[in-house]
């Protein structure tokens, strides 16, 4: 197999390769959205309120950013296995299980980074918002909106982590051909088959995709900054 193996597949519009790329995007984007829905308000809340044990929570969130994917995969596997507590859902070895694992993996990243951004912003707007007698929930909303450009970068960090990991999706998805096979597990599989050049080619495809998504997000940010005045 020559180094152009992956390129040939792309140029030939290989259907199974597109299915793999599509599934990678669906799984990681779904996980990013879910993690954002949970993580951003949570991060903002921790950033804006004071309660006993707040420092411990901040340290915990920051520490969870380093969750090893393979450990998350194992935990979700034990949870979703037929012999586990949520086994009746029959989710193991499905894309849904992969979304769950990646969500658990990146929700702390999004929460911890959001907390930092919101807290810094709060320091800036504290007097203003206090004078306007804005309630805590409205504060969370106002500051999240104000920090939206930074939050996009946080989303990208979360998406990058989700799309790049292989340990968790391999365990909970099972790398089933045409069903739970994503870019990273395909690369691992092709490497194990000795198709090193194809594996490298697929790696380049994955990196290019991540770059393209980041470029798109950057473009959107620039565009909206110009138009937000």
């Amino acid at each position: 197999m020559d180094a152009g193996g992956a390129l040939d597949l792309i140029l030939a519009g290989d259907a199974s390769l597109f299915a793999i790329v599509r599934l990678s995007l669906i799984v990681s984007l779904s996980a990013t959205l879910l993690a954002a829905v949970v993580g951003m308000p949570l991060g903002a809340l921790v950033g804006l309120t004071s309660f006993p044990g707040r420092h411990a929570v901040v340290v915990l969130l920051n520490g969870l950013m380093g969750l090893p994917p393979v450990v998350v995969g194992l935990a979700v596997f034990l949870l979703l296995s037929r012999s586990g507590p949520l086994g009746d859902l029959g989710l193991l070895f499905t894309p849904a299980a992969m979304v769950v694992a990646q969500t658990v993996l990146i929700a702390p990243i999004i929460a911890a980074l959001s907390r930092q951004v919101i807290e810094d912003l709060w320091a800036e707007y504290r007097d203003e918002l206090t004078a306007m007698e804005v309630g805590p929930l409205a504060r969370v909303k106002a500051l999240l909106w104000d920090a939206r450009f930074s939050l996009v970068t946080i989303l990208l960090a979360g998406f990058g982590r989700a799309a790049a990991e292989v340990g968790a999706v391999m365990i909970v998805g099972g790398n089933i051909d045409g069903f739970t096979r994503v870019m990273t597990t395909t690369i691992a599989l092709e490497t194990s088959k000795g198709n090193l050049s194809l594996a490298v080619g697929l790696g380049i495809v994955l990196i290019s995709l991540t770059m393209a998504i980041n470029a798109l997000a950057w473009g959107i940010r620039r565009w909206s900054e110009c138009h937000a005045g």
Partner: protein
Amino acid sequence: MRIRHLAVALAAMAAAGLAAAPTTAQDMSIVVASTTSTQDSGLFGHILPLFKKRTGIDVKVVAQGTGQALDTGRRGDADVLFVHAKPQEEKFVTDGFGVKRYDVMYNDFVLIGPKSDPAKVKSGKDIIQALKAIHDKGAAFVSRGDKSGTHSAELRLWKDAGLDPAGAKPAWYREIGQGMGAALNTASAMGGYVLADRGTWISFKNKDQLEISVEGDKRLFNQYGIMLVNPEKHGHVKKDLGQQLIDWIVSAEGQKAIRDYKIDGQQLFFPNAAPTG
């Protein structure tokens, strides 16, 4: 407020993604836990489309080592097991986790080694003598170390040779805890010996300085079997669909499909199911 609408929209999209994902093709599909050798060699890619054409059933293969595949079955996470470690498979059935074990096919293990052949075992026919030579020379040997069928076979052979490198852990004995392909890649990179199933070896693309050192010893026989996970242990097992796959694999048609799978003109697996009525 706009951000709220956005959050609601995002949540709805994510929920839709979650809901849509698992329902696709769920009705007519079964999960088969199998070994890396059957997947990496391309056998499934050849026979499963034929089965799908005949029955409309989607077979989702999770490729693991035999030990892990048996555990997947024990937990109820697969409907059918297709593996290669007969003693463990028979125990799986006796313990009540499997219904019945069927012989499917065989191939053989081969000892792979570097062309430089530091242990001087090339073109041998006696695997036990070869292992003793590797041991005496302290030549690098890569072990799967993952409780797979190939790993079990390797440990059995060391035992027959009266040696126990897995217990003694000498520096030349490298347990990598990974699949067949990864073990071959490692052997290739470090110029070591490794026990491999012939199917994976033939289809392996990174042979580089590796070649077959020992083959043809009858102790290298490698039998594959198939079993339905016991529905009495795990009520959700799709026993009808799973049994259809088993019946097809051991039928004349399934056996022919296995026989017909070749790479560069070489047959990888030899069907040997008991004739069915």
